[in-house]
């Protein structure tokens, strides 16, 4: 019996749309929203507005990058918000030893959390959602305990520069986020790690049979995701100029997953759309900004976000062939 697979040609327009929408829908939506805003929203197309939007979206983009990598392996990481909180809690404690020391400690916290997540997923074999749930619950608690539940003002100007300084007229925060986008994009496309990650997400049994170090790569992915989250955490502290472990990064896992999914990365793994993820984060930011500018309440924004998530997942959902 010949089981020749004929490449399915989308003859119907709906079929073509279905293939097109998850890939480019996000860019189209951004263009539409921008055009709408230029005409109907006062003071939208201004440098200061763009600046504010970029500063606000930067931490989400950074966290979403890590989330995209994890989702690329068919995983999920719910603990990113807690990692941000942990990073935020460590900053004031170690700032006395210098900015570099504080940053290193914050990043190490990320490494530790990511390592635990990765081991639970790769070695113990837990579902990613379950494995990361424990640190989602416990991580923030630990952060608040470490910071003794206090909101600490940060006055170290070198550190604050990261969050509120400018370089060539563009906020440092935005530079860092842009640099990380490039790095992650490069990692996905050009490194052994990136290629293995995609292969594992695309077909794990095949990756195992091909002799790839599957477990090591998976652990590494969760570590990278957590480190990116801790970078976002310390940058958030630098921007707000204070550390409050109970509020930093609250619900960011939701925004990050939304950005990744809206950006066209399937939850089923095997693909990572770095630029799409950035666009996804931008789109959500733009939606919120537009609604606020038109005096819609945050409550409405939340409900609209919920609907966008559902639509994005529904559109991108892989058809079960059974």
């Amino acid at each position, binding site marked *: *019996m010949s089981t020749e697979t004929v490449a399915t040609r989308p003859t119907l327009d709906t079929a073509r749309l279905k293939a097109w929408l998850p890939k480019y829908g996000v860019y189209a939506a951004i263009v539409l929203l921008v055009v709408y805003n230029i005409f109907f929203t006062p003071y939208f197309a201004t440098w200061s507005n763009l600046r504010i939007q970029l500063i606000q979206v930067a931490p989400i983009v950074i966290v979403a990058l890590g989330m995209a990598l994890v989702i690329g392996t068919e995983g999920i990481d719910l603990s990113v918000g807690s990692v941000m909180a942990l990073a935020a809690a460590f900053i004031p404690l170690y700032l006395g030893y210098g900015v570099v020391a504080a940053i290193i400690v914050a990043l190490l916290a990320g490494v530790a959390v990511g390592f635990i997540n990765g081991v639970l997923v790769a070695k113990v074999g837990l579902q990613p959602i379950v494995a990361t749930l424990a640190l989602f619950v416990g991580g923030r608690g630990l952060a608040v305990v470490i910071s003794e539940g206090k909101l600490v003002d940060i006055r170290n100007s070198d550190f604050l520069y990261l969050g509120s300084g400018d370089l060539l007229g563009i906020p440092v925060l935005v530079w860092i986020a842009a640099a990380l986008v490039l790095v992650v994009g490069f990692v996905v496309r050009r490194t052994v790690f990136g290629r293995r990650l995609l292969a594992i997400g*695309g077909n794990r049994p095949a990756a195992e049979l091909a002799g790839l170090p599957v477990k090591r790569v998976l652990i590494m992915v969760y570590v990278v995701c957590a480190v990116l989250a801790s970078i976002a955490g310390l940058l958030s502290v630098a921007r707000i100029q204070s550390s409050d472990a109970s509020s930093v990064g609250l619900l960011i896992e939701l925004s990050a997953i939304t950005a990744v999914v809206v950006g066209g990365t399937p939850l089923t793994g095997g693909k990572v759309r770095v630029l799409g993820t950035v666009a996804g984060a931008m789109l959500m930011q733009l939606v919120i900004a537009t609604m606020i500018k038109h005096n819609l309440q945050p409550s409405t924004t939340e409900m609209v976000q919920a609907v966008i998530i559902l639509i994005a997942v529904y559109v991108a959902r892989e058809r079960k062939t059974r």
Partner: protein
Amino acid sequence: MALLEVADVSKIFPGVRALDSVSFTLQPGEVHALVGENGAGKSTLIKVLTGVYQPDGGELRYQDQPAQFGTPMDAQRAGISTIYQEVNLVPLMTVAQNLFLGREPRNSFGMIDRGRMDREAREVLAGYGVTTDVRRQLGTLALGAQQMVALARAVMIDAKVVIMDEPTSSLEPREVQTLFGVIRDLHAKGIGIIYVSHRLDELYEICDAVTILRDGKLVHTGKLAELERIKLVSLMLGRDMAEVRREGATAFSGEGTGDESAAPVLRVRELNSRHKLHDVTFDVRPGEVVGLGGLLGAGRSETIKAIGGAYHLDSGEIEVDGKELKKPTPVRAVKAGIAVQPEDRKAEGIVPGLSVRENIALAVLPRVSRGGFVSDSKIDEIVDRYMKRLRIKASSPDQAVGDLSGGNQQKVLLARLLATDPKVLLLDEPTRGIDVGAKAEVQSLIDELAGEGLGVVLVSSDAEELVEGSDRVVVLRDGVVVGTLTGTEVTTEDLMSTIATEAHREH
């Protein structure tokens, strides 16, 4: 009066005619063997009978009435039950709950009467030789006992037809005898049984009639006792005994390339894995193609996977080029120079979403990179070499492998294996599901690679391919090496008679 009748049923999938006007009749009280190699259409036929698929043509009659089953539930309600290879029960629920799910006895308040349920479950199962605590989780029972529970459930819901798909594949010999006892009971009760298995001894022991499918077509149906074993095997494998063998039906040169005096490149000693492999032992010399013969479920794929570190072994020794492969894992096996082409290309071979280039380079990434960064020029070199050598047809190396034809997917997979510079190549059904042209290309490639000094192990259900492609054939049955064909013995006739010989009952 026929119990279940299928007349001229066809089922078409995109690009494949899975069933081509197949007819089949099951009498009450008959144990009917349904046999055929992979892809013959057995499972499609079963799925049509049980309402999983709707036929694209032909008629289904049940108890002399035209029947149409929209869902498996419809079929089950009508009295057609299936016991699948992977037991289709809920492992975490108790034995009694599984037996009664959906039909639990209830007390006058509408609550499930647990006491009665457990008691009845115990009584029913005792008749099947299962005397375990019925409040245990089903998943903690031995597979044989689980299968009995499934069977008991099917019979309890007034099944008139019971379909058993490879029921003995994971049973101990004494469990098989218990099962046969139950089947004889059912037979006496007038229940019709469709029995799918590749163990010839079992078929001849328990079945009355046989239907043989090949490539979606009916090739034979009739009384089993009237059919010789060798005839049965030849019908399954597609070689008519009378048919004169045409030389060169495959692209294999037929010339042996193995150097008899050379030290083996692969030594396999006494591989054992519970239920599946028993003391499997053979050698492969450089330049030699060793075929693994046998029917489906004989342990061919398991042997190959075990050598590749992807199948659990209880004991055994594997040596590559004189070096022992200790605690085989895929990573260690690849390092030792073993390359495995798995049987299921889509599930375990290619990564469909990635490009041709990335699929080919997947296993050799460390070699084509420096400091973790991939060098495109080095990859292009490899990809270019193998795309040319294997004549992979893709619009560009960047095309997703999932969009290629089956033959080209297979070549991409082979390219990935060859890129690792293996010493031994293990090929499991390398030409299945690919078009004629690609088939010939893959076959001559195998010859060519052996000519270059690789040791090749070839598994194929196509008897012709196996015989013409191999210098020697090791024949497996039920996980045991039952014979080795060498020199002039490497013919389809010898292969079939070795497969068909009666197993002397062990244990």
